[in-house]
């Protein structure tokens, strides 16, 4: 039987299991419209580039009326990520931080060692850390030991739109820590990817490029909203198990069979 109890995010329950990034939209007007269409309950914002001076842009983000999850996107060391997290806490007045420490410039793969180091420091400082990680179970356990209460395993490398690269690994991770809220973050390109993640029992998905860079970001936002809802319902409905043996869904009385 699938577990249907909603896991909370540091005490908060989300209205919808969709988190949306705020970068790369054609304009802030399109960003706002996409958010409305998506019903996203959380907006992630990057502090590396849109540094503290972008007051007008921050006002737009705050005006979305959703929770803000600042991130440390583009940080390549624990030190950088910690500094960025502290800036974010001041700017957005939230203990939430999506912790991203990049270890490899080409694949933007998380640096597990830097990530763990930063997570320990930030959790001790009272941050509520959403750790952007891989599907590695050992790393997940270490991050939980460090004080993380939410994990964000990747679907595929950031911005690739490849979907869930390692469904087996993600299923194992989900099963290994059934009480921990997990968000599939990065690499989702299509609504079907998001639905698949939700069907597997993840608590939410986070995406950005797939909506922002779509030809019609507003329509794509709506498509993702429908997909996460479909996936969530499917998970709660306890899907059938795949089987090797064909079984006719309609009986065929009167036909000879062997």
């Amino acid at each position, binding site marked *: 039987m699938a577990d249907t109890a909603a896991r909370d995010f540091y005490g908060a329950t989300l209205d919808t299991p969709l988190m949306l990034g705020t970068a790369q939209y*054609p*304009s*802030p*007007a*399109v960003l*706002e419209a996409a958010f409305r269409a998506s019903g996203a309950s959380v907006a992630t914002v990057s502090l590396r*580039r*849109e*540094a503290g*001076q*972008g*007051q*007008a*842009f921050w006002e*737009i983000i705050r005006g979305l009326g959703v929770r803000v999850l600042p991130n440390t996107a583009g940080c390549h060391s624990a030190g950088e990520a910690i500094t960025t997290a502290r800036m974010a806490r001041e700017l957005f007045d939230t203990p939430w931080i999506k912790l991203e420490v990049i270890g490899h410039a080409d694949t933007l793969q998380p640096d597990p060692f830097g990530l763990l180091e930063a997570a320990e420091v930030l959790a001790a400082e009272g941050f509520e850390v959403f750790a952007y990680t891989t599907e590695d179970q050992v790393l997940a356990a270490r991050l939980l030991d460090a004080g993380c209460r939410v994990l964000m395993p990747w679907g595929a490398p950031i*911005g690739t739109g490849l979907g869930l690269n390692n469904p087996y690994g993600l299923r194992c991770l989900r099963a290994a820590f059934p009480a921990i809220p997990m968000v599939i973050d990065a690499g989702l390109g299509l609504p079907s990817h998001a639905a698949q993640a939700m069907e597997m029992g993840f608590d939410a998905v986070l995406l950005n490029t797939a909506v922002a860079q779509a*030809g019609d970001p507003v329509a794509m936002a709506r498509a993702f909203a429908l997909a996460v809802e479909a996936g969530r319902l499917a998970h709660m409905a306890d899907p059938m198990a795949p089987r090797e043996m064909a079984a006719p869904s309609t009986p065929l009385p009167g036909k000879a069979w062997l």
Partner: protein
Amino acid sequence: MADVTVLGAGVAGLWAAFTLSRAGLSVRLIDRHGGPGPHGCSWWAGGMLAPFCEGAMAEPAVVAHGRAAATAWATVTEVIARGSLVVALARDRGELERFARRTGGHRQVTDLRALEPDLAGIRQALFFEREAHLDPRRALADLVAALGARDVPVETAETTPEDIPGPVIDARGIGAGLPGLRAVQGEMVVLRAPEIRLTRPLRLLHPRHPLYIVPRPDGQYMLGATQIESADRRGMTARSLMELLGAAYALDPRFGEAEVLETGADLRPAFADNVPRVLVRGRVVHLNGLFRHGYLMAPALARQAADWITQGIKGDLVDVD
């Protein structure tokens, strides 16, 4: 008293003054610094007149009005009507296909030897034949000269619309501090690379570091431009410089030998939809929000402001409160 006073001698203010003067009005033009220069974002522009390419991200109004820009500019300055090219590195072929789907006015080119011999190694490109470019600083100077010839000098004064009697056009960009206006930082670099010969603007599509290169006279190339949601007044960051140069180097390693002549950064004024507007607020008419489309949209915006002031015609970019 002048019929209209224009504040700000950037590309929007100059075009507004020029258009109103040609419509027969007496015009005063006042700028804090006495003319265009490094203090205004028009100075740092690429000078591409590329409405079709911009359509990949911009609203349809930008494409529609931008198409008339090259003809308008040709009345005051040299416009180089050689089209523009869009290319991608081999592994980013998908980006090129997507760009083609989202834009019009182009054709696929598989052999660049005739168009740009220096790019002969590139096997796939989009050619936007009807696009053009100009040298922005020369264009600004030519506009100032054309206004001077009409007895509209640029007066130097620090002033606001409240200080000026009568109808005012406020074209002070981000300095106008309009509600709903935000700053989007842009950075650029100018190189001299006499070994390389490109005759038309080139866009390199890249998932991380998109780049455009605009040829300037004397073997110079303007590389642009970052687009950062920030009102930061600092100069160009090392990171942006590395990204632009890295992309150029990937396109043609000879850019590695180029001389860096100049880097620049400034703030583009933009409204929420990144479409410029003529905001009529009593006797003050604001021309603002030209974002990255100053040279593309200034002629049309000035025309709509002039039509409103002289004939009460309300164009699609005019907002009357």
